[in-house]
Every structure is written in structure tokens, then in C-alpha cells.
């Protein structure tokens, strides 16, 4: 324990130097801004800003890049709440209730609770990394293909529970999502599947393209076909910050979200994406009145946002302690470290203690800065909603196009968001929920790959999923959840609740 304090004080000594404070602030600011722009994600930004960091010392450079990363997570929720465009998989759930809250004139409250929840989660996650980072690495190693497949199965069951309205439609959407995720080059054989021989489909469909089309573009079209609805939003801005009542409703979801997110964030293969979904499902399941979810429930913002930020932070654990990046942004951080002459691996902690602890301390500093940057800006963001929609939507559209192009520099991606926009619009009109489809899409690929990997390693024996205790446990939870969701009596009640 004494070690922890001396290490942390070493870290804060580094993080609180004037230069590093400035860099953390710069990173957070840039991150927030690019997060707010739909589609311009942390990956494109960090890649673009890498050369600028060449002149800095490695610690300062990494502090700034890390700031961009979690700044973007914050900013991403802003767009999800205000204009219903989740820039990343992790803010899909925030859009569900967050945007509903905005429509009811509670945008400020939603943004505020997202910022406060994230700050709390960030603080806890920083402590977790500092205290348990090294021992927790074991968790990343326990999760092999078998465990991962079972975790994904559980995730898909979450998706069913997550859905509003008809369970049949929800399952259909999940399956469409899974199907879409199989487009592209098959990982094991290298064969192309469902690409129609088109080269730009060879690597599959990008998540951002699908999400931006289905949510963002479709939302714009829906808004344009009944404009009067938007006027209501503009008139009622409401309170800017959450009040005591809001806090009373949110603090438990924040605690639970932080816990769930922190654990899932450590898992390899982007386990962090499950965090917000899992938190939302949990909140909905234990809520006294699940009907409020999807209609502007503050718990539906507080929980997932905390889970999101906790996961974003703890996903640094495999990177810092093992040198293994759990997702694409972390892979980029590996690149940034190598360019600066630090090769990530288990020895970073002992060989570069100032960098290691400095970064951890700067995470907390960064979170504090984000709160300071974001809370005063809530008013400004909310005022954005006052901009007449006829002026706002071309701007959103343009940023979507620029953002999506910046990811892979592919013109076809821009066309695809248009196409998926039409699909999304049609889905809304026919009463299908897009969220389960996105979850199916995210989990489908991981699920298929891990299933095949697990079966190849076990030489085709299905028993492997039951022989591994963690895998068996996860499957059991999934089965129980599914039974609860599908029990006829419950389903009947559910349908009554959700048909309007």
C-alpha cells in the first residue's frame, strides 16, 4: 500500500508539471471537440497528430494522446445526446435515452449527468489501474476464445433484453446485424464473403459507417419529415444541470456502471464495447418501471456513460502492463509509444516508471479537466439545439461525410452512410429498432471468430465451452436471461407495455 502511494506521488509529480498539465488540457480539449464532430473519431485524430508529438518527450506526448482519447469519449456522448449520432459503438446506448431526454428539454441534465458520471467512473478507474493494474492483467489472459465466445452469447442475449417493442422484431434485427458483420474477407480461409466482388467490401463494413448511417442520417431524414416536432425541442431547453432528484436517481446506476465497465474494459478484443450495453440492460432489468427506458430515463444515461468511461480507462491496463492493445485506439497508442522509443510490454512499469505512473496520474488530471471543460460548455451545446434545424442539418451532414472519409479515406464509405441512412429511415418507419442490430453487428464478428478459433483449438469438440468454467458460467447466465426474457407470461406483459 505504501508502494501505491509513493508510486502515485511520483506519477502526480510528473503529471502536475506545467508542461504536462498544458498537454493534458490540450489533449482533452482537442478530444472533446473532435468527439463532438460526428464521425471524426479518436483514431483519425491521434494518427493525424502523431507527427506533432515528435518534438515532445514521450511522457508528455502520451499524456496528450491519452487526453484526446478520453476527451473523444466525452465528446461522443454529446453528439449522441443532442443529435442522436453515436460516433462510436460505446455511445449507441447513450443515444437511446439521452436523445429522448433532449427532446423533452432535458438535454442539459443529460449532458451534465454524463459528464459527472464519467468523472466519477474515471476517478475510480484510475485508482483501479494504479492499485490493481498488475494483478488484473491475469484477467485478460484468462479470457481465451472459448470464454470470449460465451461472453458474446451473453451479449446477444443482452441485445434481446435491450430491445423495445416486439421481441420478434428485435431478434430479427440482431440477426441482420450478425449477418452484416459476416461481410468481408473470412479470417481463417481468406475467402471473400458477400462482397459481390467489390473491393471496398473486402474488409467488411466499418462500424462507424453503419452507425452513422442507421442512426445519424436516418435521424436527420426523420426530423426533416416532421419539422414541427423539433420546434418543441427548441422552445423547452429546461434546466442546465442535474438537480438533487436527478442525482438520487443516478448515483446507483453510476456505481453499477463503473463496476461493469471497469471489468469489461480489461478484456482483450474490445470487451469495453459491451460495458454500456450491459449497464443499460442491468438498469432496465432492475428498474421499478422499465417502461421509462427508451423514453428519457436518466438512469439509461448515467449507467452506460459511467460504464463507457470506466472501460475506456481500464482498457489501458492490458496496454500498460502487458503491452497488448485491446482495441484499435490502444493499438495506435502502441505505435505512438514505439515511435517515441518505448516499446510497450511488461517491462515498461519497471524500466520507465515515470512514464507509467505519470500517465496513470494524468488520467485523473485529465478527467478533472474534462469536467471543468465540459460543465460550463453544457450551456453552449444546449444552445446549439436552438439553431434552426434547416441550418443545423446541412452542417451535421457535412461533418458526417468528412468524419467518415477521415477514417479510411474511402469515398465509398461516404456513399454507404447515405445508403444505410435510407435503410435506417425505412426501419424506423416500419417500427424496427436499430440498436439491437448494431449490437448484433459488433458482437457477431467477435462471436464467429472466437467460435471458430475455440473449435479449431479443441479440434471440433463442442464440450470445450462447458469444460472451461468461466465459459460455462457465462453460458448459464445467458440461458437464464433468455428464459426470463422469453417466458410467455412475461412476454405477454412486455408486449402490452411496449405497444403504443
Amino acid at each position, binding site marked *: 500500500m505504501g508502494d501505491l502511494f509513493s508510486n502515485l506521488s511520483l506519477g502526480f509529480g510528473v503529471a502536475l508539471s506545467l508542461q504536462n498539465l498544458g498537454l493534458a488540457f490540450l489533449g482533452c480539449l482537442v478530444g472533446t471537440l473532435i468527439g463532438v464532430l460526428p464521425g471524426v473519431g479518436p483514431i483519425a485524430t491521434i494518427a493525424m497528430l502523431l*507527427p506533432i508529438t515528435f518534438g515532445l518527450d514521450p511522457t508528455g506526448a502520451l499524456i496528450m494522446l491519452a487526453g484526446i482519447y478520453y476527451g473523444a469519449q466525452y465528446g461522443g456522448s454529446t453528439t449522441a445526446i443532442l443529435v442522436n449520432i453515436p460516433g462510436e459503438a460505446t455511445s449507441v446506448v447513450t443515444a437511446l435515452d439521452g436523445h429522448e431526454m433532449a427532446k423533452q428539454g432535458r438535454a442539459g441534465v443529460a449532458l451534465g449527468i454524463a459528464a459527472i458520471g464519467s468523472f466519477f467512473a474515471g476517478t475510480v478507474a484510475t485508482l483501479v489501474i494504479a492499485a490493481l493494474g498488475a494483478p488484473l492483467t491475469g484477467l485478460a489472459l484468462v479470457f481465451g476464445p472459448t470464454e470470449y465466445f460465451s461472453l458474446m452469447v451473453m451479449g446477444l442475449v443482452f441485445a434481446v433484453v435491450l430491445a423495445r417493442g416486439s421481441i420478434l422484431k428485435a431478434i430479427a434485427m440482431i440477426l441482420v446485424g450478425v449477418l452484416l458483420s459476416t461481410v468481408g474477407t473470412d479470417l481463417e480461409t481468406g475467402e471473400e464473403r458477400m462482397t459481390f466482388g467489390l473491393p471496398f467490401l473486402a474488409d467488411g463494413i466499418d462500424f462507424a459507417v453503419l452507425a452513422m448511417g442507421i442512426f445519424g442520417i436516418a435521424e436527420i431524414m426523420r426530423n426533416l419529415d416532421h419539422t414541427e416536432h423539433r420546434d418543441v425541442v427548441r422552445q423547452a431547453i429546461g434546466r442546465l444541470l442535474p438537480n438533487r432528484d436527478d442525482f438520487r436517481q443516478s448515483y446507483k446506476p453510476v456505481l453499477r456502471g463503473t463496476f461493469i465497465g471497469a471489468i469489461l474494459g480489461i478484456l482483450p478484443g474490445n470487451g469495453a464495447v459491451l460495458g454500456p450495453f450491459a449497464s443499460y440492460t442491468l438498469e432496465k432489468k432492475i428498474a421499478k418501471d422499465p417502461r421509462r427506458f427508451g423514453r428519457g430515463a436518466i438512469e439509461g444515461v448515467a449507467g452506460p456513460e459511467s460504464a463507457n468511461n470506466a472501460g475506456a480507462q481500464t482498457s489501458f491496463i492490458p496496454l500498460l502492463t502487458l503491452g497488448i492493445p*485491446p482495441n484499435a485506439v490502444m493499438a495506435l497508442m502502441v505505435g505512438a509509444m514505439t515511435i517515441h522509443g518505448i516499446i510497450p510490454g511488461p517491462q515498461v512499469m519497471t524500466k520507465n516508471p515515470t512514464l507509467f505512473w505519470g500517465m496513470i496520474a494524468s488520467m485523473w488530471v485529465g478527467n478533472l479537466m474534462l469536467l471543468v471543460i465540459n460543465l460550463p460548455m453544457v450551456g453552449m451545446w444546449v444552445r446549439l439545439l436552438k439553431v434552426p434545424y434547416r441550418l443545423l442539418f446541412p452542417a451535421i451532414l457535412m461533418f458526417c461525410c468528412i468524419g467518415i472519409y477521415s477514417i479510411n479515406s474511402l469515398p465509398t464509405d461516404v456513399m454507404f452512410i447515405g445508403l444505410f441512412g435510407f435503410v435506417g429511415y425505412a426501419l424506423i418507419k416500419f417500427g424496427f429498432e436499430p440498436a439491437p442490430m448494431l449490437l448484433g453487428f459488433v458482437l457477431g464478428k467477435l462471436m464467429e471468430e472466437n467460435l471458430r478459433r475455440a473449435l479449431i483449438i479443441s479440434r471440433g469438440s463442442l464440450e470445450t465451452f462447458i469444460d472451461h468454467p468461466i465459459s460455462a458460467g457465462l453460458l448459464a447466465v445467458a440461458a437464464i436471461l433468455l428464459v426470463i426474457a422469453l417466458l410467455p407470461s412475461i412476454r405477454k406483459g412486455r408486449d402490452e407495455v411496449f405497444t403504443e
Partner: protein
Amino acid sequence: MKKIALALAAAAGLAATGAQAQGYPTRPITMIVPFAAGGPTDVIARIVTDHMSRTLGQQIVIENVAGAGGTTGITRAAQSQPDGYTIMMGHMGTHGAAPALYPNLKYDPTKDFAPIGLAAGTPIVIVAKKDFPATDLKSFLEYLKTNADKVNMAHAGVGSVSHSTGIFFNSVVKVKPTMVAYRGTGPALNDLMANTVDFMTDQIVNVAPQIQGNNIKAFAIATPERSPVLPNVPTTKEAGLEGYEVSAWNAVFAPKGTPPDVVKKLSDALMKSLDDENTKKRLLDLGGVIPTNAERTPEALQKLVESEVARWTPVLKAAGASAE
């Protein structure tokens, strides 16, 4: 149709600008890196171009166009205007293994480029899980032969360096382990460290930290000389394996038709960059191998590409590997 349009546009652009090499470069140069930012090729590109930009007096901007084992980015770069303002970082996969892996490849590595020069090689290391019941390369090879049906080999996806070099390894030592594909080196290493899969071959920059941290075992490095980053790991030859010397080289190319004086300027800038102490140190820290003066020339690169295509095609074809 699209190709024709592109060719027309390129031709029109060429006619309009002419071959104006005087004063080149007058604006920033784009270097297409055909892999995601942060990977070994991207890191090498950024280190090398950092110094090149200073020599040329114009910034070289890295554009990452990932996809299809790097062939998406190289295809785009090959079809861009040959005016020296679009260059690319090709590597062993895109300019060696790709013709065998992608039957519909839209470029020919030996014909469609103006080689600039070799940037850096990253040696391949044969690594295994910590619990593997072998202590050196010899006992490892024996184990492989007697337990062929039990052993799993991990790789980072069809078309990746670890995949091609892995198949090459299997053909040299004549074993057929079960191949397990991952999406990238990270997850593959994760499972190797967790003892879920048995062994793999990969670039030194990816595996060295885990070897130094005793999370995985290294049996041999596939270069003629040991690496200063891993001084205790014997070369394949020292360890008794002939015929497995392979490195993932990275090299700068321009599209075919780039004016010779532009090629010369770029090539000189690259050479200068590789002589710079700071660039050298950064590459060596990664475990990179810096090419000798003779290896850096455009002519030497052209020969390397030809010999690499000739080397990889039969190996990969025999293994039935294809990414289409």
C-alpha cells in the same frame, strides 16, 4: 470502368503538369502507408520520413489506407499521379507475397512501380508459449514432427507477415500444424501468452517485449546475425535450421512513370535519413535492421522485389493460401 476513368484522369493530370521536376518538391508529399496507424510498417514510415521531410524541405504526410493485407492502399498509390507527390511504403507482403495471395491483384510489384529504396527490415522470430515442452529450436522441431496433429500455430490473419512467414516456416521444416487465425498480432500474442495456442512467427518489434518479459519463449531469429535487442536468441543457422532466413522488409516506392530526377531526390533523402544517428537509433531500438548502402539503391530494391515474388509465390501457392 473506374480504372479507365482513373487512368484518363491520371493521363490528363500528367499532361497538364508535365514532368516538372525542377524545384521539386514545392508542396507536401503524401506517403500512403497501407496499414493501420501504429503497426510496425507505420512506425518505420514515420521514423524514416521525419528526417526525409527535413532534407526535402517539405513535409511528408502519412496517409493510412488499410485493407486487404495492404493491397488496397498500394493499389490506390500505384494508380495515383506519378509526379512524386504520392509515394508509398510497401513491404514484404504487398510487394512479395501479394501476387500469390490475391489472384485479382490490380498491380504487378515488379512492373508497376518506380522503386525509391529499402527503408528497414524487421527480423522474424520463432516464438512459442511459455509452457511449451521444448527448450531450444532442435527439441522444438522434434516435438513438432512427432506431435504434428496436436500443435496449433497462431497468425495475424491471411496476408499478414506472421501468416506468410509461418507458412514458409512450415514448408521449410515440413510440418503441418493447425493454423489459428487472429485479427492482428495483439490478440494472437495475448493467446500465446495465455498458453492457448502453441507457437507463431512474427516481427521482432511485436514479440521482443514479451520475450524480455519472460511471457513467451523465443527459439531462433531468422536473420544471418543475432539482434542487439535479443542477444540471447540464436539465429536459425546457429540453432541448426538451414533455409529459414526471412525478414519483413519495408521499402519506399513511387508509382511507375515518376520522373527519374524526382526518384533520385527521394532516394537521396531516404539514404540521408538512414545515415542520421537519431533515425538509426530509433530503428535499432525497434530491433530493425538498417540496409547497407548497396542495399538502399532503387536498383537493389527492384532486384529484391523480383526475388521476393519469386520466393513467396511457390511457397504460398503450395500451401493453398489465398485471400480471394
